[in-house]
């Protein structure tokens, strides 16, 4: 596991979406995980044909800890000119999820949810029930932890000291230990110690 060199960022506002200034960017709704699926189906029937994006935010000290954010766009699912589209509506659905809670997958409603849900799982560790292929997408398959969580450190462990280059082993290096005591053997012991600790 990575070290904890940088402390996690914990801000002063615990729940920013509740404090937002009036910005006209989307209609905002908040649903409980149990009602999420029903509400999304309802919205899709009422014309929100596109799942623009699916992301998550980790609020760490808040209860429930995560917000999974669905951005929906109202768009006719048939061919349309610019006049027909006019000003399409955007809707943002926030769903609070706690650490061990699962969410229903919407992969069968929108095909695009496939990779979006995999990414949220990969980077936040939120599990979507019903997803047919829920595995890591950005990080390597054997990665530990979920990087976009706020308690995941920003930096990895300090890099190990690189071994001495090969030319240092040659006999043209002056014999005898230098005053610093950094002979090849001492250095290798140091590296071994660093690796074991």
């Amino acid at each position, binding site marked *: 596991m990575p070290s904890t060199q*940088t402390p996690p*960022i914990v*801000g*002063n*506002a*615990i729940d*920013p*979406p509740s*404090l*937002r*200034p009036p*910005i006209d*960017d*989307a209609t905002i709704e908040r649903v409980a995980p149990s009602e999420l699926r029903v509400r999304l189906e309802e919205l899709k029937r009422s014309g929100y*044909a*596109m*799942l*623009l*994006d699916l*992301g*998550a*935010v*980790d609020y760490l000290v808040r209860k429930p800890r995560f917000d999974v*954010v669905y*951005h929906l766009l109202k*768009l*006719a*699912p*048939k*061919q*349309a*000119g*610019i006049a*027909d*589209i*006019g*000003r*399409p509506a*955007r809707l*943002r659905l926030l769903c609070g999820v706690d650490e061990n809670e699962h969410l229903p997958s919407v992969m069968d409603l*929108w*095909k*695009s949810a*496939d*990779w979006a849900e995999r990414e949220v799982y990969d980077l936040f560790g939120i599990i979507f029930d019903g997803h047919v292929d829920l595995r*890591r*997408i*950005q*990080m*390597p398959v054997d990665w530990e932890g979920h*990087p*976009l969580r706020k308690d*995941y450190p*920003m930096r990895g462990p300090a890099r190990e000291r690189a071994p001495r280059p090969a030319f240092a082993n040659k006999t043209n290096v002056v014999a005898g230990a230098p005053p610093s005591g950094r002979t090849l053997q001492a250095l290798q012991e140091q590296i071994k110690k660093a690796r074991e600790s």
Partner: protein
Amino acid sequence: MTVYARPLSPDVVTQTGNTMVLSMGPQHPSTHGVLQIVLEIDSENVVKADPEIGYLHTGIEKTAEGLFWTQAQTVIERMDYLAPSSNALCYALGVERLLGITDRIPPRAQTIRVLEMELTRIASHCVWLGTHGIDLGALSIFFYTFDLREDILDLQEANGGARMHPNYMRVGGLNGDLPDGYLHKLDELIEKFPGRMRELRGLLQANPIFQDRTIDVGVLSPEEAISWNVTGPSLRASGIAYDVRKAFPYSGYDTYDFHVPTRTEGDAYARFLVRLDEMEEAMRIVKQARQRLDTPGPVMIDDPKVALPPKETIALSMEALIHHFKLISEGFRVPPGDVYQSVESPRGELGYYIVSNGENRPYRIRTRPPSLYNLQALKGIAPGNLIADLVVMIGSLDPVFGEVDR
């Protein structure tokens, strides 16, 4: 002479029944970056294509959480490296909305932003066209498109100081006004652009080989396109005229006169035509923006809490010095809240969901990467086609992997 037959390693090729699983990429010249596609093939026909991404994952969203609001823009610009200004503008617009200063951005700054956006669109489409041609064996078009792109990069270098990542946009306006001689060079570009477009169209549009390779390849129906969340030229080639510049105008796009090119065929050739038309429409917007640039004016908001004070005032005014010091050492704070802001990038709807908790650093920046969703549609359109056509489809969806993997 001995011929050494070397068996492929089992994780690359496995035979199961009548089909074979073959890994294409991640080091493949036609994948436009580091894309691996795990293909299930029946002789030459693709049965299933599963793109594997993440080879270029650089954790930009995580990195941005540890930087000041201004610094974060530097890494965000690196997402879509072919159209860096669109990333920067979208981010700046989002932060401006959280700060509540959207209405106070000077008009000249908005005009230059639009100009930059459209120039970057042409430059990005140039790269797409050149590489798309190379995928199909048309090597010469690459040199023509990169010649045109070079002129635009020269302009970017003139105002931002760097060719690829000018970092010219700022929260509250722009880094600085246009340099001397910029408008003259822009006029030259405007003048020679129609001739350049004729050349580009002449090289490929009526070419029978190109048409054979692209017509009826990778057809995306409007319903499929919406379900796969495809946006940008790829969606408009399927007949749906959704364009963020028209639907949710920003930076005064509603005051420009331009069309949104659409086609109804939904195949790779339609996407090609839509992008070429889009380059010409972009130039129309550039011309209109050029006319508005003759009147001088400020290019940065007059708000010392956000904008750096003019350099010459620092030695004279104590307040200016304090503001300068505060902005450099700890940045500005953004009131708590969340906002979704999107722009029409060359690839589609680029969106940022920005959350601020009142600190001087972003709490979370979620990107809506158009390339990611456009590329995902490959899973829907690839099956039933030849492997050779797969290359055309990837090219026509125009993914940029800095953005897909972030």
